[in-house]
């Protein structure tokens, strides 16, 4: 089954790759890590990149479901 996944980028990572959002078609069973490579033409993910699925932090091997929102961003610096 084909899934539609929204991918979002924030802060310096967004500046670096020049996009804030992708909409990807992917097959079931794809991981967050694989989503990155699919969206970024196999470019390496910068060190320290954090990932979230549906606004919760996840590990990169987490599998993604249809309709999920995946986000990649650098270490947070609020407060």
């Amino acid at each position, binding site marked *: 089954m084909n899934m539609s996944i929204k991918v*979002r980028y*924030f*802060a*310096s990572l967004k*500046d670096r790759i020049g996009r804030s959002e992708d909409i990807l078609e992917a097959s079931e069973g794809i991981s967050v890590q694989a989503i990155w490579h699919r969206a970024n033409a196999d470019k390496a993910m910068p060190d320290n990149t*954090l990932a*979230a699925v549906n*606004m*919760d*932090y996840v590990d990169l091997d987490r599998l993604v479901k249809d309709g999920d929102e995946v*986000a990649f*961003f*650098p*270490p*947070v*610096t*609020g*407060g």
Partner: protein
Amino acid sequence: MAIKICPDAFDPWQEIQSYQRASVQAGKFGATSVFIGTMRDFNEGDQVKGMFLEHYPGMTEKQLEKIASKAKAQWPLLEYLLVHRVGAILPNEPIVLVAVWTSHRGDAFDASRYIMEALKSTAPFWKKELLHSDQERWVTKNTDGYAVDQEG
């Protein structure tokens, strides 16, 4: 219990006073611990004339709620107030406010510090500084870190 994301400048003392009057039961709290983070006009040896605070709307609130829930589970908090600024910020403007009301002081100190450290390490905010030279740079790490579980 309140969490606010503010796109405009806020007066932390006014926020606390209003919140306390409206929501904190008189006579029941013995301790109030407050932390305010304010924008400085220098960082890492450079003069800074402004800052842009980006965040991840939705995730920010979700993570702050998680932090607050964890704090409530760990300490007997009577009330808390959490305010975080986003957008364009000038030096001397407040960035973050954490206030907690408890019966006893140890809990107030512990909980406010926990909330701040957890916020610093897990809430999706990012600072971009505008230097005196007009150069812009992303802040890449927070100072004064204390280990807090990333899984928040």
